[in-house]
Protein backbone atom coordinates (compact mmCIF):
# COMPACT_ATOMS: atom_id res chain seq x y z
CA UNK A 1 0.00 0.00 0.00
CA UNK A 2 1.32 3.44 -0.85
CA UNK A 3 1.84 5.85 2.03
CA UNK A 4 -0.48 8.68 2.89
CA UNK A 5 0.86 12.03 1.69
CA UNK A 6 3.11 14.12 3.90
CA UNK A 7 1.71 17.38 5.29
CA UNK A 8 3.64 20.26 6.81
CA UNK A 9 2.00 21.80 9.88
CA UNK A 10 1.99 25.50 10.82
CA UNK A 11 0.59 26.79 14.11
CA UNK A 12 -0.32 30.33 15.21
CA UNK A 13 0.74 30.35 18.85
CA UNK A 14 -1.58 33.20 19.80
CA UNK A 15 -3.39 36.08 18.21
CA UNK A 16 -0.99 38.62 16.80
CA UNK A 17 1.72 36.09 15.86
CA UNK A 18 2.55 34.49 12.53
CA UNK A 19 1.89 30.84 11.84
CA UNK A 20 5.15 29.00 12.44
CA UNK A 21 6.23 25.66 11.03
CA UNK A 22 6.09 23.07 13.82
CA UNK A 23 6.58 19.75 12.04
CA UNK A 24 4.93 17.33 9.72
CA UNK A 25 2.65 14.31 9.63
CA UNK A 26 1.00 11.88 7.24
CA UNK A 27 -2.74 11.91 6.56
CA UNK A 28 -5.12 10.56 3.95
CA UNK A 29 -6.68 13.98 3.30
CA UNK A 30 -6.80 17.58 4.48
CA UNK A 31 -9.45 17.00 7.12
CA UNK A 32 -7.50 14.15 8.70
CA UNK A 33 -4.31 16.21 8.53
CA UNK A 34 -5.94 19.03 10.50
CA UNK A 35 -7.37 16.64 13.03
CA UNK A 36 -4.06 14.85 13.54
CA UNK A 37 -2.18 18.16 13.70
CA UNK A 38 -4.42 19.21 16.57
CA UNK A 39 -3.71 15.97 18.44
CA UNK A 40 0.02 15.89 17.76
CA UNK A 41 1.04 19.54 17.92
CA UNK A 42 -1.46 21.32 20.19
CA UNK A 43 -2.02 19.05 23.18
CA UNK A 44 -1.15 21.88 25.57
CA UNK A 45 -2.85 24.93 24.07
CA UNK A 46 0.14 25.66 21.85
CA UNK A 47 -2.02 27.28 19.22
CA UNK A 48 -5.16 29.16 18.24
CA UNK A 49 -5.02 28.30 14.53
CA UNK A 50 -3.50 25.54 12.40
CA UNK A 51 -2.54 25.42 8.73
CA UNK A 52 -1.72 22.14 7.02
CA UNK A 53 -0.32 21.99 3.51
CA UNK A 54 0.77 19.04 1.44
CA UNK A 55 4.57 18.97 1.38
CA UNK A 56 4.60 18.33 -2.37
CA UNK A 57 2.73 21.61 -2.92
CA UNK A 58 5.53 23.71 -1.41
CA UNK A 59 8.01 25.40 -3.74
CA UNK A 60 11.33 25.90 -1.96
CA UNK A 61 14.62 27.56 -2.73
CA UNK A 62 17.40 25.04 -3.00
CA UNK A 63 20.26 25.21 -0.51
CA UNK A 64 22.87 25.07 -3.29
CA UNK A 65 21.71 28.33 -4.78
CA UNK A 66 21.47 30.13 -1.47
CA UNK A 67 24.37 32.44 -2.26
CA UNK A 68 23.09 33.70 -5.63
CA UNK A 69 19.46 33.71 -4.46
CA UNK A 70 20.10 35.82 -1.39
CA UNK A 71 22.97 37.84 -2.86
CA UNK A 72 20.73 40.80 -3.79
CA UNK A 73 20.17 41.38 -0.07
CA UNK A 74 23.84 41.12 0.79
CA UNK A 75 25.07 44.38 -0.74
CA UNK A 76 22.15 46.56 0.32
CA UNK A 77 23.24 47.51 3.80
CA UNK A 78 21.31 50.77 3.40
CA UNK A 79 18.15 48.72 4.02
CA UNK A 80 19.13 48.46 7.68
CA UNK A 81 18.60 51.27 10.20
CA UNK A 82 22.14 50.88 11.54
CA UNK A 83 23.50 52.09 8.16
CA UNK A 84 22.67 55.68 9.17
CA UNK A 85 24.65 57.41 11.88
CA UNK A 86 22.63 59.88 13.90
CA UNK A 87 24.14 61.92 16.77
CA UNK A 88 23.49 60.41 20.21
CA UNK A 89 21.70 63.51 21.45
CA UNK A 90 18.89 63.30 18.90
CA UNK A 91 15.99 61.77 20.88
CA UNK A 92 13.43 59.12 19.90
CA UNK A 93 15.35 57.88 16.85
Amino acid at each position, binding site marked *: *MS*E*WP*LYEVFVRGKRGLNHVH*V*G*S*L*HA*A*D*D*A*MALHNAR*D*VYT*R*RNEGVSIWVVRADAIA*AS*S*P*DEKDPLFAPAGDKVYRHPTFYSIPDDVPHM
Partner: protein
Amino acid sequence: MTTTVPEDVLLQQFDAVIARNDRIEPRDWMPEGYRKTLVRQVAQHAHSEIIGMQPEGNWLTRAPSLRRKAILLAKVQDEAGHGLYLYSATETLGVSRGELTEMLIEGRQKYSSIFNYPTLSFADVGTIGWLVDGAAICNQVPLCRTSYGPYGRAMIRICKEESFHQRQGYELLMTMMRGTDEQRAMVQESVDRFWWPALMMFGPPDADSPNTAQSMAWGIKRNTNDDLRQRFVDMTVPQAEALGVTLPDPELRWNEERGAHDFGQPDWDEFMQVVQGNGPCNRQRIAHRRRAHEDGAWVRDAATAFAARGTS
Protein backbone atom coordinates in the same frame (compact mmCIF):
# COMPACT_ATOMS: atom_id res chain seq x y z
CA MET B 1 20.16 24.45 -13.80
CA THR B 2 22.38 21.85 -12.18
CA THR B 3 26.02 22.40 -11.58
CA THR B 4 28.08 19.61 -10.12
CA VAL B 5 30.07 20.73 -7.13
CA PRO B 6 32.97 18.39 -6.39
CA GLU B 7 32.53 16.28 -3.30
CA ASP B 8 35.58 17.60 -1.47
CA VAL B 9 34.18 21.13 -1.74
CA LEU B 10 30.82 19.96 -0.41
CA LEU B 11 32.57 18.19 2.44
CA GLN B 12 34.51 21.36 3.27
CA GLN B 13 31.27 23.34 3.40
CA PHE B 14 29.68 20.66 5.60
CA ASP B 15 32.67 20.63 7.95
CA ALA B 16 32.58 24.41 8.17
CA VAL B 17 28.92 24.36 9.25
CA ILE B 18 29.71 21.77 11.93
CA ALA B 19 32.82 23.67 13.05
CA ARG B 20 30.89 26.88 13.69
CA ASN B 21 28.26 24.91 15.61
CA ASP B 22 25.61 25.69 13.06
CA ARG B 23 22.87 23.28 12.00
CA ILE B 24 22.63 20.97 9.02
CA GLU B 25 19.20 21.12 7.36
CA PRO B 26 17.43 18.42 5.32
CA ARG B 27 18.31 19.56 1.82
CA ASP B 28 21.98 20.25 2.59
CA TRP B 29 24.61 17.91 1.27
CA MET B 30 25.89 15.60 4.01
CA PRO B 31 28.38 12.71 4.13
CA GLU B 32 26.71 9.33 3.78
CA GLY B 33 28.11 8.23 7.16
CA TYR B 34 26.52 11.24 8.88
CA ARG B 35 23.16 10.47 7.29
CA LYS B 36 23.35 6.78 8.19
CA THR B 37 24.37 7.47 11.77
CA LEU B 38 21.49 9.90 12.15
CA VAL B 39 18.95 7.54 10.60
CA ARG B 40 20.06 4.81 13.01
CA GLN B 41 20.02 7.05 16.07
CA VAL B 42 16.83 9.02 15.40
CA ALA B 43 14.89 5.96 14.23
CA GLN B 44 16.00 4.05 17.31
CA HIS B 45 14.87 6.97 19.40
CA ALA B 46 11.48 7.11 17.62
CA HIS B 47 10.95 3.36 18.04
CA SER B 48 11.77 3.71 21.76
CA GLU B 49 9.00 6.26 22.23
CA ILE B 50 6.50 4.01 20.43
CA ILE B 51 7.49 0.75 22.14
CA GLY B 52 7.77 2.69 25.41
CA MET B 53 4.00 3.11 25.42
CA GLN B 54 3.56 -0.60 26.12
CA PRO B 55 4.97 -1.11 29.64
CA GLU B 56 2.94 1.79 31.01
CA GLY B 57 -0.07 1.19 28.78
CA ASN B 58 -0.21 -2.14 30.60
CA TRP B 59 -1.56 -0.29 33.67
CA LEU B 60 -4.05 2.04 32.01
CA THR B 61 -7.11 -0.06 32.74
CA ARG B 62 -5.95 -0.81 36.27
CA ALA B 63 -4.93 2.65 37.48
CA PRO B 64 -6.18 3.01 41.05
CA SER B 65 -8.09 6.26 40.54
CA LEU B 66 -9.57 8.37 37.77
CA ARG B 67 -6.89 11.01 38.47
CA ARG B 68 -4.05 8.54 38.00
CA LYS B 69 -5.73 7.09 34.93
CA ALA B 70 -6.13 10.49 33.25
CA ILE B 71 -2.49 11.35 34.01
CA LEU B 72 -1.19 8.03 32.70
CA LEU B 73 -3.31 8.30 29.57
CA ALA B 74 -1.93 11.78 28.88
CA LYS B 75 1.62 10.56 29.43
CA VAL B 76 1.26 7.57 27.13
CA GLN B 77 -0.33 9.83 24.52
CA ASP B 78 2.66 12.18 24.81
CA GLU B 79 5.01 9.27 24.06
CA ALA B 80 3.04 8.56 20.87
CA GLY B 81 3.53 12.22 19.95
CA HIS B 82 7.26 11.97 20.68
CA GLY B 83 7.46 8.99 18.35
CA LEU B 84 5.74 11.01 15.62
CA TYR B 85 8.03 14.04 15.99
CA LEU B 86 11.04 11.76 15.69
CA TYR B 87 9.68 9.70 12.79
CA SER B 88 9.09 13.00 10.96
CA ALA B 89 12.69 14.03 11.62
CA THR B 90 13.94 10.65 10.34
CA GLU B 91 11.86 10.99 7.19
CA THR B 92 13.67 14.21 6.30
CA LEU B 93 16.74 11.99 5.85
CA GLY B 94 15.09 10.10 3.02
CA VAL B 95 13.56 7.08 4.78
CA SER B 96 9.82 6.57 4.53
CA ARG B 97 7.50 5.99 7.48
CA GLY B 98 6.49 2.63 6.06
CA GLU B 99 10.11 1.49 5.88
CA LEU B 100 10.72 2.59 9.45
CA THR B 101 7.73 0.63 10.74
CA GLU B 102 8.87 -2.42 8.77
CA MET B 103 12.40 -2.18 10.14
CA LEU B 104 11.06 -2.05 13.69
CA ILE B 105 8.72 -5.01 13.45
CA GLU B 106 11.27 -7.08 11.56
CA GLY B 107 13.89 -6.37 14.21
CA ARG B 108 16.27 -4.63 11.79
CA GLN B 109 16.33 -1.47 13.89
CA LYS B 110 16.52 -1.33 17.67
CA TYR B 111 14.84 0.54 20.49
CA SER B 112 15.96 1.28 24.04
CA SER B 113 16.67 -1.86 26.07
CA ILE B 114 14.74 -0.47 29.05
CA PHE B 115 11.35 -1.18 27.46
CA ASN B 116 12.05 -4.91 27.42
CA TYR B 117 11.55 -5.07 31.18
CA PRO B 118 8.07 -5.84 32.52
CA THR B 119 5.89 -3.57 34.68
CA LEU B 120 4.91 -5.87 37.52
CA SER B 121 3.21 -3.45 39.90
CA PHE B 122 1.55 -0.05 39.73
CA ALA B 123 4.58 1.40 41.52
CA ASP B 124 6.46 0.73 38.29
CA VAL B 125 4.44 3.52 36.66
CA GLY B 126 5.93 5.91 39.19
CA THR B 127 9.43 4.46 38.94
CA ILE B 128 9.39 4.67 35.17
CA GLY B 129 8.36 8.33 35.31
CA TRP B 130 11.02 9.14 37.88
CA LEU B 131 13.98 7.04 36.69
CA VAL B 132 13.32 6.13 33.07
CA ASP B 133 11.95 9.51 31.97
CA GLY B 134 14.58 11.07 34.24
CA ALA B 135 17.36 9.24 32.40
CA ALA B 136 15.72 10.13 29.08
CA ILE B 137 15.75 13.82 30.06
CA CYS B 138 19.47 13.58 30.89
CA ASN B 139 20.07 12.12 27.42
CA GLN B 140 17.75 14.47 25.59
CA VAL B 141 18.53 17.91 26.97
CA PRO B 142 21.99 18.04 25.30
CA LEU B 143 20.45 16.65 22.10
CA CYS B 144 18.44 19.86 21.73
CA ARG B 145 21.78 21.24 20.44
CA THR B 146 22.49 18.34 18.09
CA SER B 147 23.85 19.34 14.69
CA TYR B 148 20.91 18.08 12.62
CA GLY B 149 18.17 20.74 12.66
CA PRO B 150 15.02 18.58 12.53
CA TYR B 151 16.34 16.25 15.26
CA GLY B 152 17.20 19.17 17.55
CA ARG B 153 13.79 20.76 17.03
CA ALA B 154 12.04 17.47 17.82
CA MET B 155 14.13 17.18 20.99
CA ILE B 156 13.14 20.68 22.10
CA ARG B 157 9.43 19.83 21.81
CA ILE B 158 10.00 16.54 23.62
CA CYS B 159 12.00 18.04 26.47
CA LYS B 160 9.22 20.55 27.15
CA GLU B 161 6.87 17.63 27.72
CA GLU B 162 9.19 15.30 29.63
CA SER B 163 9.26 17.28 32.83
CA PHE B 164 5.58 16.47 33.42
CA HIS B 165 6.43 12.79 32.94
CA GLN B 166 9.14 12.78 35.56
CA ARG B 167 7.21 14.84 38.08
CA GLN B 168 4.02 12.78 37.86
CA GLY B 169 6.09 9.65 38.49
CA TYR B 170 7.90 11.10 41.47
CA GLU B 171 4.67 12.43 42.94
CA LEU B 172 3.07 9.00 42.53
CA LEU B 173 5.94 7.41 44.46
CA MET B 174 5.79 10.10 47.16
CA THR B 175 2.11 9.35 47.61
CA MET B 176 2.81 5.64 47.99
CA MET B 177 5.65 6.33 50.44
CA ARG B 178 3.15 8.18 52.66
CA GLY B 179 0.91 5.09 52.62
CA THR B 180 1.21 1.69 54.30
CA ASP B 181 4.33 -0.42 54.88
CA GLU B 182 3.21 -2.63 52.02
CA GLN B 183 3.05 0.34 49.68
CA ARG B 184 6.51 1.51 50.73
CA ALA B 185 7.83 -1.99 50.11
CA MET B 186 6.25 -1.93 46.66
CA VAL B 187 8.09 1.27 45.83
CA GLN B 188 11.44 -0.06 47.08
CA GLU B 189 11.00 -3.32 45.18
CA SER B 190 10.22 -1.42 42.01
CA VAL B 191 13.23 0.89 42.39
CA ASP B 192 15.45 -2.15 43.00
CA ARG B 193 14.30 -3.68 39.71
CA PHE B 194 14.59 -0.54 37.59
CA TRP B 195 17.78 1.06 38.91
CA TRP B 196 20.30 -0.96 36.88
CA PRO B 197 18.28 -1.07 33.66
CA ALA B 198 17.91 2.74 33.98
CA LEU B 199 21.71 3.13 34.15
CA MET B 200 21.99 0.94 31.04
CA MET B 201 19.89 3.47 29.11
CA PHE B 202 23.01 5.58 28.56
CA GLY B 203 24.61 2.79 26.57
CA PRO B 204 27.83 0.82 27.10
CA PRO B 205 30.88 2.35 28.84
CA ASP B 206 32.83 4.79 26.68
CA ALA B 207 35.62 2.28 26.16
CA ASP B 208 33.12 -0.08 24.48
CA SER B 209 31.29 2.55 22.47
CA PRO B 210 33.33 2.84 19.28
CA ASN B 211 30.94 5.19 17.46
CA THR B 212 30.84 7.87 20.15
CA ALA B 213 33.94 9.76 18.98
CA GLN B 214 32.69 10.13 15.41
CA SER B 215 29.19 11.07 16.56
CA MET B 216 30.65 13.77 18.80
CA ALA B 217 32.90 15.07 16.03
CA TRP B 218 29.80 15.44 13.87
CA GLY B 219 27.92 17.17 16.69
CA ILE B 220 25.25 14.48 16.68
CA LYS B 221 26.03 13.51 20.27
CA ARG B 222 27.17 16.18 22.70
CA ASN B 223 28.28 14.03 25.67
CA THR B 224 29.71 10.57 26.17
CA ASN B 225 27.66 7.74 27.68
CA ASP B 226 29.68 7.74 30.91
CA ASP B 227 29.37 11.53 31.33
CA LEU B 228 25.61 11.34 31.08
CA ARG B 229 25.39 8.32 33.39
CA GLN B 230 27.42 10.18 36.01
CA ARG B 231 25.20 13.23 35.69
CA PHE B 232 22.10 11.06 36.13
CA VAL B 233 23.44 9.35 39.26
CA ASP B 234 24.40 12.68 40.81
CA MET B 235 20.96 14.11 40.14
CA THR B 236 19.09 11.03 41.35
CA VAL B 237 20.80 10.31 44.67
CA PRO B 238 19.30 13.30 46.54
CA GLN B 239 15.90 12.57 44.98
CA ALA B 240 16.07 9.01 46.34
CA GLU B 241 16.94 10.36 49.78
CA ALA B 242 14.01 12.77 49.73
CA LEU B 243 11.74 9.92 48.70
CA GLY B 244 13.07 7.61 51.41
CA VAL B 245 14.21 4.76 49.18
CA THR B 246 17.64 3.21 48.80
CA LEU B 247 19.38 2.60 45.51
CA PRO B 248 20.55 -1.03 45.18
CA ASP B 249 24.25 -0.33 44.71
CA PRO B 250 26.66 -1.14 47.57
CA GLU B 251 29.43 0.85 45.85
CA LEU B 252 27.39 4.04 45.64
CA ARG B 253 29.00 6.81 47.70
CA TRP B 254 29.95 10.45 47.48
CA ASN B 255 33.52 11.05 46.35
CA GLU B 256 34.66 14.31 47.90
CA GLU B 257 37.71 14.56 45.67
CA ARG B 258 35.84 14.20 42.40
CA GLY B 259 32.82 16.13 43.61
CA ALA B 260 30.69 13.29 42.25
CA HIS B 261 29.30 9.91 43.25
CA ASP B 262 31.22 6.70 42.76
CA PHE B 263 28.93 3.89 41.69
CA GLY B 264 29.00 0.30 40.46
CA GLN B 265 28.63 -0.92 36.90
CA PRO B 266 25.42 -2.49 35.61
CA ASP B 267 25.59 -6.09 34.40
CA TRP B 268 26.77 -5.43 30.84
CA ASP B 269 26.30 -9.08 29.85
CA GLU B 270 22.63 -8.74 30.69
CA PHE B 271 22.55 -5.52 28.64
CA MET B 272 24.00 -7.31 25.60
CA GLN B 273 21.49 -10.11 26.00
CA VAL B 274 18.59 -7.65 26.05
CA VAL B 275 19.96 -5.70 23.07
CA GLN B 276 20.29 -8.94 21.15
CA GLY B 277 16.62 -9.71 21.67
CA ASN B 278 16.76 -11.98 24.71
CA GLY B 279 15.37 -9.68 27.40
CA PRO B 280 12.28 -10.58 29.41
CA CYS B 281 9.80 -8.89 27.03
CA ASN B 282 11.51 -8.39 23.63
CA ARG B 283 9.33 -10.85 21.74
CA GLN B 284 6.13 -9.67 23.36
CA ARG B 285 6.88 -5.99 22.57
CA ILE B 286 7.52 -6.59 18.89
CA ALA B 287 4.63 -9.03 18.52
CA HIS B 288 2.31 -6.45 20.05
CA ARG B 289 3.57 -3.69 17.75
CA ARG B 290 3.19 -5.96 14.73
CA ARG B 291 -0.34 -6.92 15.70
CA ALA B 292 -1.35 -3.28 16.19
CA HIS B 293 0.10 -2.43 12.77
CA GLU B 294 -1.56 -5.34 10.98
CA ASP B 295 -4.90 -4.94 12.76
CA GLY B 296 -4.91 -1.29 11.70
CA ALA B 297 -4.42 -2.04 8.00
CA TRP B 298 -8.14 -1.95 7.18
CA VAL B 299 -8.48 1.47 8.84
CA ARG B 300 -5.64 2.86 6.74
CA ASP B 301 -7.13 1.33 3.60
CA ALA B 302 -10.59 2.68 4.35
CA ALA B 303 -9.24 6.20 4.96
CA THR B 304 -7.29 6.05 1.70
CA ALA B 305 -10.38 4.91 -0.21
CA PHE B 306 -12.47 7.63 1.40
CA ALA B 307 -9.90 10.30 0.52
CA ALA B 308 -9.75 9.02 -3.06
CA ARG B 309 -13.47 9.78 -3.48
CA GLY B 310 -12.64 13.41 -2.76
CA THR B 311 -15.67 13.91 -0.54
CA SER B 312 -13.95 14.75 2.70
